[in-house]
């Protein structure tokens, strides 16, 4: 197990390096740059600015300096767009916010989705099933950029119950709507996967054995059917976790939460190479870490898997 984890972490290093190099060049090949604008700067000014950020150096030298600073100083460089702020600051400010509402959304989506799916499977072809399936499909059909405006219209403008935006250190009133908006569609997918997985498990031979042993239905479901049901759900949850943790452009936009999603989207539009690369690397590391956790979680769900 420990040998396996070490092996996976060693394998992660080249993965992240390839990710950095590939994103670095992809960005440079895209037309435009951080300092091109509708009113062109005087050539002398532009050259000065580019020299300040090292953009006048050959590409390989820029890449070398970038990697060198990350590895030896853990410094992702200054932002090209925001004066006096560097990438470390921007991530340190935005990530805790994204992480908070992201992790909450993940929890809500998983708990509600799995419960709905199980309820639907146990009461297969009854009104409970139809209701859960209907709810799941409706939820799946509502991406966060649709949910956002609907929630604000309902709870802020119409009912006046919740503040329309802001963060305020993550007080609960400010959390509710971002969490609902972000979790809804994932919840729908999770409910659907759980339902079909549990239906399959309930048809398997070992469930028949459990019934033949005279176990109460409750025991059959929770003790015998739940773990194998969750296996396919877990493989779906991995990527979802990474995605919600790094926040969402739309949630940040509608609810002015100030998370990382906004910084990411903004930096892509304004060619803020440093911020864009920094957040991409964060995504990469999170993905590798969560994939490892998912694979380790499998072993708990299925004893056949040994590392």
């Amino acid at each position, binding site marked *: 197990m420990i*040998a396996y984890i*070490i*092996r996976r972490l060693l394998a992660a290093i080249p993965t992240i390096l390839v990710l950095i190099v590939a994103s670095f060049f992809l960005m440079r090949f895209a037309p435009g740059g951080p300092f091109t604008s509708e009113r062109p700067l005087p050539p002398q000014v532009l050259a000065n600015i580019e020299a300040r950020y090292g953009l006048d150096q050959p590409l390989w030298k820029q890449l070398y300096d970038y990697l060198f600073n990350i590895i030896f100083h853990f410094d992702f460089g200054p932002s090209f767009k925001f004066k006096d702020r560097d990438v470390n600051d921007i991530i340190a400010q935005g990530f805790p916010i994204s992480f908070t509402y992201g992790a909450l959304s993940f929890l809500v989506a998983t708990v509600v989705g799995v419960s709905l799916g199980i309820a639907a499977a146990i009461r*297969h*072809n009854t009104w409970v099933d139809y209701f859960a399936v209907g709810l799941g499909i409706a939820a799946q059909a509502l991406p966060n950029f649709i949910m956002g405006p609907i929630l604000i219209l309902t709870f802020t403008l119409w009912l006046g119950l919740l503040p329309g935006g802001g963060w305020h250190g993550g007080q609960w009133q400010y959390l509710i709507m971002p969490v609902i908006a972000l979790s809804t569609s994932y919840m729908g997918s999770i409910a659907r996967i759980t339902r079909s997985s549990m239906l399959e498990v309930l*048809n*398997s*031979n*070992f469930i*028949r*054995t*459990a*019934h*033949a*042993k*005279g*176990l*109460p*239905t409750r*025991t059959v479901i929770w*003790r*015998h059917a739940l*773990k*194998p049901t969750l296996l396919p759900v877990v493989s779906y949850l991995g990527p979802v976790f990474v995605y919600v943790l790094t926040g969402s452009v739309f949630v940040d936009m509608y609810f002015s939460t100030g998370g990382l999603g906004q910084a990411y989207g903004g930096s892509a539009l304004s060619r803020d190479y440093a911020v864009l690369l920094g957040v991409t690397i964060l995504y990469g590391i999170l993905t590798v870490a969560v994939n490892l956790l998912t694979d380790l979680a499998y072993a708990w*769900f*299925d*004893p*056949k898997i*040994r*590392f």
Partner: protein
Amino acid sequence: MSLLTVQDLSVDFTTADGPVKAVTGINFDIQPGECLGIVGESGSGKSQTFMAAMGLLPANGRASGSVRLNGSEILNLATPELNKIRGSDVGMIFQDPLTALTPHLRIGEQMREVLQVHKGVVGRQARRLCLDWLDRVQMPVAARRLEQFPHELSGGMRQRVMIAMSMLCNPRLLIADEPTTALDVTVQAEILDLMAELQKEQGTAIALITHDMGVVARMCDRIQVMRQGGFVENGTATEIFHSPKHAYTQALLKAMPRIDAADAPQLFETQARPILRVDDVKVHFQMKMSGGLFGHWVPLKAVDGVSFEVRQGETLGVVGESGCGKSTLARAVLQLIEPTGGGVSWLGQPIVGLKRAELNKYRKDLQIVFQDPLASLDPRMTISASIAEPLLTYRPDLTRRERKMTVADMMERVGLDRTLFNRYPHELSGGQNQRVGIARAMINRPKLIICDEAVSALDVSIQAQIIGLLRQLQAEFGLALIFISHDLSVVRAISNRIMVLYLGRVVELADGETICAHPQHPYTQSLISAVPVPDPDIERSRCRIKLPGELASPLDPRAALRFLPSRLAAGETNYLPKLIQFAPDHYVAEHDPLELILEG
């Protein structure tokens, strides 16, 4: 009073295509302590009868009639009431021990929950009872099993666990649904002995549901024959086997292949040179084992030095238990996987290591028929297109019309109706699909066909038809066949010579008659003695040779010397037993005397 009385039981399923009647008003009863056999082919409703009685039908099933256990009605009881009976008064074991146990719970946990639910026994006392029963089903190292997961046990051990688990509350009736169908014959013999012992010692009545007349002959006091949801005939074992009244029972008994059959093929006398020569073929796989930072690789010797010849027009049978390398050998002979070592020559030409294009010239003559007829046909192609496909490769000169004629002609030869020409595999029965597989293999008139478990998935009567067809095609075209199966009776019914494999090596090779009647190697002897014969008198008077231990794993280097304990004791763990000519055309691998091996 009868233990179980079933009256006018019917089972219906509502399906998308309308209602289906699975069981149509049957009556029977089981007396305390007796073994009742319920025999029938797939779809006869034999399993559904008992599923309905125990309230285990799927949600779309409906049962009506009456089922009384000890005089009280149990059909369609509410689940909590049924749960008091299931696992307590009535134990059940199922066909596939591989999937019948919950994969993520330890054996001990699965056994203890039965005691907890029915008797409220927990903790140390429960553990002692579980151990006690695991010992009684002769589970090796019982205490360790409690902490193991099902996948860590072999098929035979899992079935022992199932039996121990269902016996925990001393049920008065044990329902065994095809309990040995998925097991090797030597393991099957042990499980059947175990069940017979329980019946005698505990006085447990057994309802044995099976398709295998041999198993029934060995175990059952009374027999009910089922067909299409109804009872055809019932009687004592002697009555059913010696004077069957109904035509269906007679046909079923006639279709059963037996190792002592008189009309089985004899040694094929020919002066012809062998067409296929296999010389010391080896197939080793590298298995990744955990341990250390990067793990390590261990060779699995699936086939480890097998040599044989096949002459034109003869059938060579290959038998062995699971893991003996018979399918790997077939693939290596056809170069579908490249052998690790050794040579294969076809009509005197070596074919190992040839490039794909060169090999394709030989593929026309060398064909294979697989086990699962449905899975080995392309589901999106009509059966005529599947049969015609080899023609496109090897007979590009044919016009569309000629091709169609050839296919229609071949379909007729293998007994497929013309109207099936444009059907898809899922619209056909298993037997029909296997005929398609044979037609596809036959279409280019090959000289050799390898049948890899080609009839194992089929019902007995269909099995007999397919074997008849193969024998007829062989006589007509002078085909050579290599017939691979785990079922010795089936192999005997078609083979001139039989080769017995054990862990990738030949242990005995001789004509069918000799192998079945006068086997020399202890492994062959134990295999033959374990094969059930559909005749209660013979079956109950035979003496069985039980080798110590379970079927060994090919990863265990000591297992290869199971029949040479003297060499093992001398520390020669890498010794390879030689194949010695015992008589003309009869080869036996080196082995110690039987007594020495039985000492274990």
